[in-house]
């Protein structure tokens, strides 16, 4: 019997070893690096003076906003069938694409590779299963490539101005890299935010300071934002946004792997492959800068998700007339973005997926998540912000009162 027992020893050992390795590796990765302590101001300065201009890395973005997870491919599937239709419905397709990609942002996990070389060269690859979406920016030229739909969009900045590259969107609505989100958050720091330094953390194998931003405002859904700032270079490595009263972050974007080397320059030159439907588009710098400013203001409200939605809808409104510009009311964490009625909001209201996720309230429908609320009024205006739904409804009422041109729904 002892003989028989002995033969099972390797099985037991193998199980223990495999379990041990699996448990030990993450522990080792999270070991306290023991950095010299710094004040919050020093860490903010470290991040602001970050000297990193070229790097390549992998970014993981996770959203857990309390929405039901969508089965894989629902969004892309519906948009895929849409894009196969005739070109006549192009704008409607684009709008519903934008809606579904905004929705995609609010659920699940995305992995992206980022290659950056200076301010002008960027390549972002969103790694989907058996597919990929690419953003390639080189100077004033920007390509968006979707391998599944075999489409490419080529945007070139028109007009002059040093801010031309900034006017181009740098990321599709779905993914925001830690350093993009962090720079927007840090540039909008104001006294309404309590800044402190948490314990040292390790992200992507690098030791980092954990900068914790806690909004003082009571009327925001954001509980805390934690930014891991690389101790050597000041590059933000991770951003976590936690909803008020929640334990786990509702939104995380984090480097899982990072190399501070100049990426190969081939990566930034893009020629659309044969068989790709290419859309050419020129971006008016002035109008785009306005939109970018509004988007930045929205980012500053702390809900990176909110502005993602704003970007996704805003980036498709080629008409740059003033009526379609987003309006920001309020300030800081509790600011509210208003999109006037238009084709963009029509996509939001007409999407069957969205209408399932929203709940009807007096005067419209509300998409409610732990970090962000979106209120779509019956007349098509969209209000979004990291604030309770009640504040959005109040803002909608106030906005309707201020602009009597928009007919109020008859009661």
């Amino acid at each position, binding site marked *: 019997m002892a003989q028989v027992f002995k033969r099972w020893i390797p099985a037991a050992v*193998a199980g223990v070893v495999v379990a041990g*390795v699996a448990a030990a590796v993450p522990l080792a990765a999270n070991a306290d690096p023991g950095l010299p302590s710094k004040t919050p101001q020093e860490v903010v300065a470290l991040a602001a003076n970050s000297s990193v201009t070229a790097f390549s890395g992998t970014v993981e973005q996770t959203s857990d906003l309390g929405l039901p997870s969508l089965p894989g491919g629902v969004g892309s599937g519906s948009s895929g069938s849409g894009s196969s239709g005739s070109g006549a419905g192009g704008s409607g397709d684009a709008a519903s694409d934008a809606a579904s990609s905004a929705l995609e942002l609010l659920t699940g996990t995305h992995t992206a590779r980022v290659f950056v070389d200076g301010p002008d060269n960027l390549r972002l690859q969103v790694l989907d299963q*058996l597919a990929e979406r690419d953003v390639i920016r080189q100077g004033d030229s920007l390509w968006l490539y979707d391998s599944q739909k075999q489409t490419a969009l080529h945007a070139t900045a028109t007009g002059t101005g040093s801010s031309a590259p900034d006017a181009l969107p740098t990321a599709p609505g779905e993914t925001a890299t830690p350093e993009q989100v962090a720079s927007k958050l840090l540039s909008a720091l104001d006294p309404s935010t309590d800044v402190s330094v948490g314990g040292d953390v390790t992200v992507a194998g690098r030791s980092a300071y954990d900068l914790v931003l806690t909004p003082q405002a009571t009327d925001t859904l954001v509980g805390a934002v934690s930014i891991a700032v690389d101790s050597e270079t000041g590059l933000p490595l991770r951003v976590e946004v936690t909803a008020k009263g929640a334990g786990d972050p509702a939104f995380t974007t984090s480097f899982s792997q990072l190399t501070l080397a100049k990426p190969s320059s081939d990566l930034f030159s893009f020629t659309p492959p*044969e068989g790709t439907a290419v859309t050419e588009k020129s971006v008016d710098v002035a109008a785009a800068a306005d939109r970018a400013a509004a988007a930045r203001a929205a980012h500053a409200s702390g809900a990176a998700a909110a502005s993602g939605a704003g970007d996704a809808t805003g980036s498709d409104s080629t008409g740059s007339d003033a009526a379609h510009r987003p309006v920001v009311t309020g300030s800081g964490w509790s600011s509210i973005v208003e999109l006037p009625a238009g084709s963009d909001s029509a996509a939001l209201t007409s999407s069957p997926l969205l209408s399932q996720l929203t709940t009807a309230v007096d005067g419209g429908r509300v998409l409610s998540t732990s970090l962000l609320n979106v209120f779509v009024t019956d007349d098509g205006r969209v209000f979004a912000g990291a604030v309770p739904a009640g504040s959005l409804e109040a803002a909608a009422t106030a906005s309707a009162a201020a602009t009597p041109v928009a007919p109020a729904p008859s009661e």
Partner: protein
Amino acid sequence: MSRSDAEGAAAASAGRQTNAPVPVPLTPARGAGAGAGRPSAGWALMASELSVLFRRKRTVVMLLALALIPVLVAVAVRVSSAGSSGRGPAFIGQISENGLFVALVALTICIPLFLPLTVGVVAGDTIAGEASLGTLRYLLVSPVGRVRLLVVKFVAAVAFCLAATLVVVVAGVLIGAALFRVGPVTLLSGDTIGVGDSLLRALLIAGYVTVSLLGLSAIGLFISTLTDVPVGAMAATVVISIVAQVLDSLDQLSWLHPWLFSHYWLSFADLLRQPIEWSSFGSNALLQLGYVVVFGALAYGRFASKDVLS
């Protein structure tokens, strides 16, 4: 002839004469000890195992069936010529522009069901098949150590994984080249690489898929040691592969996903990015290694301690 050999032979002949199941004794079999002096015996066994496996009609039929899938895909696309409707498996729209994509589409179709099915049949048959035919005893008294037999059986199953994957890829490339034009291949990232480069990547993908199937082979080997009914072991292995994939598609179990042997099966596409994303290759290899170690040890525990009655 060593003493243990004589004992084993005696036990076997006793079994034949009385026509009653006589357990192959655990201790005197010492095949590992006896065989260790003759390493050539292991290679001879490996060679005979491989030739038995690949000359078996069932194996040939399974490989032919796998080769049929790229052929069907290519012919269907060629005949319909309806263009891409935006539906169907990934890459199918690219076939009409580049025949090399037939191999990828076929692999994408085979990975969830057909490859696990055939691998399950081979891996589930390893020990249980010998047991059901009554040849297991003779193998063990020949003498072959139980460890050695287990290793040989596992290697043969791995060889089948490689053969099955290569059959799909090679058949796909050949039929694609026959029916469609072949040219530079567009990667997922939108970059284009030459034909030679893309054939290299196709081989890399075949390697990736083979590695992906190692864990399932080890599971099949272990299940095969549990029973004398090969069909049961095959079915159980296939069912496990399907259950793993179902679990992998449930978002509520996302904590479990990195531990499922099927989790990285479709990540072979990471080899089609520019630059190649190696991390999934590494994670996949590590995961499969873990499965091989655990289930290999379990199979050893079971096989080395069980009474071989048939």
